[in-house]
């Protein structure tokens, strides 16, 4: 018995990538400190946050034990389940706030687009793992369909932000699979052409407003421009050294909305200054780099493609959030990864890191032909 438990714990421990874990602990500690300040030293919320952290750690440990072959086999089923649920949401979805994002099963509320953030890259990686790489035109075409179908379903909800994130996650897999550079350039050009078309024909008024606000926040001082104005003032007035922990008057004085969720980066910038920001970005870059490294050590194509996509998706969250808070990207509801208050995003991200760690453990050594 004892021996058994010992073996299990040992197995779990060697699965953990110490380098990544140390970086994650540092980042989360920094995040918890700033969250304490952003919530107004609210003990009840900190208790909930602690529970989120414990839960996320457990999920990470469990995820690190799932062999990538198993993930590969599950991919198609999770993907199909997600697509069906997305269709169900559109058909019977609750009409709250003019948007249909939730599926209600009994008292459980369930946001299927959240699942697609993992399911789409898994599906595409699974598809490519059975093909020769770099992919043929036909393979890329099929993979694009696999990405576009759930994307369009999510756009219909309408949730453009999540749709773009899901699409990006899927696109990264195609990129890692070896999408020829020429096509990549073609995609970039068509995206540039599509952007204004989407802006004028594919967006809801409130979405268009957010984009416009970016270029001229003063036009809407009390509406969506208010967020950007307040967050840039908070960050800018932080200066090089910051105002010190728990001393950010902009965030303290209630000027900054959603300061413990999507706009927590402004509190960080105000209290810890540019130096703090450099340390924070250093930690993030290190984690992304380590993620890409672990992915490259993956035991098979599926593991590598999925790992690469997960690492880059993490980067996209960081980019979109910090870009929004510092006023260079439109306001999209994306949390600062691993720092913003909220359990769902924390658990999903830690699960992704768990997968990444699991891939490294079972590597068979690269460069061998598995044929």
């Amino acid at each position, binding site marked *: 018995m004892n021996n058994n438990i010992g073996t299990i714990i040992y197995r779990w421990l060697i699965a953990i990538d110490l380098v990544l874990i140390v970086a994650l602990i540092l980042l989360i500690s920094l995040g918890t400190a700033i969250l304490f300040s952003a*919530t*107004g*030293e*609210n*003990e*009840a919320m900190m208790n909930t946050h602690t529970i989120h952290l414990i839960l996320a750690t457990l999920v990470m440990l469990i995820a690190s034990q799932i062999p990538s072959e198993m993930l590969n086999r599950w991919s198609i089923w999770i993907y199909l389940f997600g697509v069906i649920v997305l269709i169900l949401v559109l058909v019977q979805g609750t009409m709250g706030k003019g948007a249909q994002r939730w599926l209600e099963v009994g008292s459980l509320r369930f946001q299927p687009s959240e699942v697609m953030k993992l399911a789409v890259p898994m599906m595409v990686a699974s598809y490519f793992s059975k093909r*020769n*790489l*770099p992919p043929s035109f036909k393979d890329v075409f099929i993979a694009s369909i696999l990405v576009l179908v759930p994307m369009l379903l999510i756009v219909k909800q309408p949730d453009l932000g999540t749709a773009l994130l899901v699409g990006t996650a899927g696109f990264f897999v195609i*990129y*890692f699979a*070896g999408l*020829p550079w020429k096509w990549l350039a073609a995609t970039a050009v068509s995206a540039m052409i599509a952007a204004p078309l989407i802006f004028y024909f594919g967006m809801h008024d409130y979405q268009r407003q957010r984009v416009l606000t970016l270029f001229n926040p003063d036009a809407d001082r009390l509406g969506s421009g208010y967020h950007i104005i*307040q967050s*840039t*003032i908070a*960050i*800018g*007035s*932080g*200066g*090089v050294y910051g105002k010190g922990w728990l001393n950010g*008057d*902009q965030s*303290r*004085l*209630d*000027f900054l909305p959603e300061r413990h969720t999507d706009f927590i980066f402004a509190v960080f*910038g105000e209290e810890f*200054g*540019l130096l703090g*920001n*450099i340390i924070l*970005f250093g930690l*993030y*870059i290190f984690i*992304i*780099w380590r993620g*890409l490294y672990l*992915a*490259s050590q993956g035991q*098979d*194509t599926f593991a*590598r493609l999925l790992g*690469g996509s997960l690492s*880059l998706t993490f*980067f996209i969250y*960081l*980019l979109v959030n*910090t*870009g929004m808070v*510092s*006023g*260079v990207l439109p306001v999209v509801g994306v949390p600062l990864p691993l720092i913003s208050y909220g359990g769902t995003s924390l658990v999903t991200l830690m699960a992704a890191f768990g997968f990444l760690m699991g891939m490294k453990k079972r590597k068979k050594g*690269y*460069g*061998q*032909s*598995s*044929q």
Partner: protein
Amino acid sequence: MEKRVTIKSERAEYRLFRSRAFVAAALVFIALAFILLRLVFLQVTSFEHYTKLSKENYQKRIPIPPVRGLIYDRNGALLADNHIEYVLDAKRDDVKDMDGMLKRLMQLLPITPQDVAKFKQKLRVNSRFQAVVLRKNLTEEEIAAFSANRLRFEGFNVSVRVQRNYPLGSVASHLLGYVGRIDKKDLKNVNKEEYKGSTHIGKTGIEKYYESRLHGKAGYELMEVDAHGKPQLKLDDEAPIAGEDLYLSIDLELQVKAEELLREYNGAIVAIDPQNGEVLAMASMPAFDPNLFVNGISYSNYNALRDNPDRPLYNRALQGSYPPGSTIKPMAALSGLNAGVVTPSSTVNGKGFFQIPGNKHRFRCWKKVGHGHISLNRAIYQSCDVYFYDLAFRMGIKRYSKAMNRFGFGLKTGIDLPSERSALMPTAEWKRKRYDKFWYPGDTVNTGIGQGFFTATPLQLAYATATLAMHGRKFRPHILRATRISRNLPEKLVTPEQLPSIGVTKLRYWDDVIRGMVNVVHGEHGTGRRSGAGAKYRFAGKTGTAQVFGIAQNKTYDASKLRKKLHDHSLFVGFAPLKNPRIAIAVIAENAGGGSKVAAPLARELLDTYLLTDKQKEEIRLKQEAKTQKKTVGEQ
């Protein structure tokens, strides 16, 4: 062109991934460097600019909650108002040397150690921007004492709290409902901006149904604040607009009387003005004190209410589905006449039981020896079960159910209160869906006397009686009678909503049925004759005794042997006066026994309360006093 490999090569794929990862890492670095550059621009280049802005950024929009509308009865008696309360509170960061100050405060004001413990607990848990209350309900002397010493207690403030108050306590509590602290779920259904300064919202009853009218429109103050967030100068403001005052159709005297009459029973009384659908009284007993809920009810109080077997939180008048028993016989009679299955003069042989042709089961009449050959009029005033078994059986459930729907049975009345129940006017389709079973003719027979699957709410019974009283003219029951936007403006009356009337083939059918109901209370052999004795006006009524407990074929009902919960419900419906009726009522007393014994006398007292002049009431009171005096003298 890239060369295509035909065999899956792990090594080639690995190399491909490595190169892609390098490019990705480079892009990550460039993108994040770009953001960092932006941060350098904000925090270094524009540092002075933003510091200046942040110093100027001392404008704060402080929401001012509107004053909630008041609620009155139809005569202007106050049912819900706002109570101004002074509290002593503080924010965590504003107080230096908290323990010392608390000690000194306790010497100055009556503050219990429990107050302090609660205060400290909340201070620890709440956000530091939130003021926490130390002492509630400060008296004027206490405020004066504190104000004189306020310099010694920097950080503590006397704040005004406006609190909803129900001056009559439990009176009409189900109907009024209550307000409570806003929670996340409440905010989903309202405009969040309007509730930024508010702490309370209507949770049940009228308070919930008319939340949007009672709440009003929030105002704000744009204040310049100093570096500590303290308001310094008002830059702009917009005054809030108070919520509308509501005048309910409830007659407080009648409502109080109804609740008093039900004090010994669990039950409900509903009284409606048949001329326009105004609800004059809606009592459900036992009741509860809505004031308990306003600032969050304590666990022990809530558990006591929730676990009370008499279920005081439940609005029986609106949600209680009771077997209506014989009270529906007048409506059934009219439906039968209209369908042509009975005529005013046709008779049925009431031999004490009814049998479906070819079936042995006996549907028994309450009168075991039977009523003999009996016509419509007598079938109503003596409440002959056999007559109505036969009527329903011959009509068939489809026609019967449809006809009773027109009186409102089985349908929500659409009254202006949340969570109304529709109760049940059963059909064959319903039974198939619900139980996956066939509808038997025996099921139809039972519905003829308001038993079996047939249930109704007290509100539905009063509504159907009002419709009957008006010869089929229907008005949707409602409780809001008038509204007032401002104290300087006159009240605006709500127009009653008239619904399509019940048409009958012969107008005199109404009078045939109503004559039977008059005989119930005024006839020599009416089941409710004791309740009609000595009345100063003529009225129509119908008693009902609803079985809660099924009795086997060869047993008799013996109340003394049954538990209280299984005793029959006592019911009565009626209206008065006969011409131009002013009030229609339904009374139900749970497990109280026969309808003539309990519900009918209660109804009579209510009708007296509403219809008699004050002088007449005084006479009755004096007579009763004389009687009891005589009695006590006689006993001595």
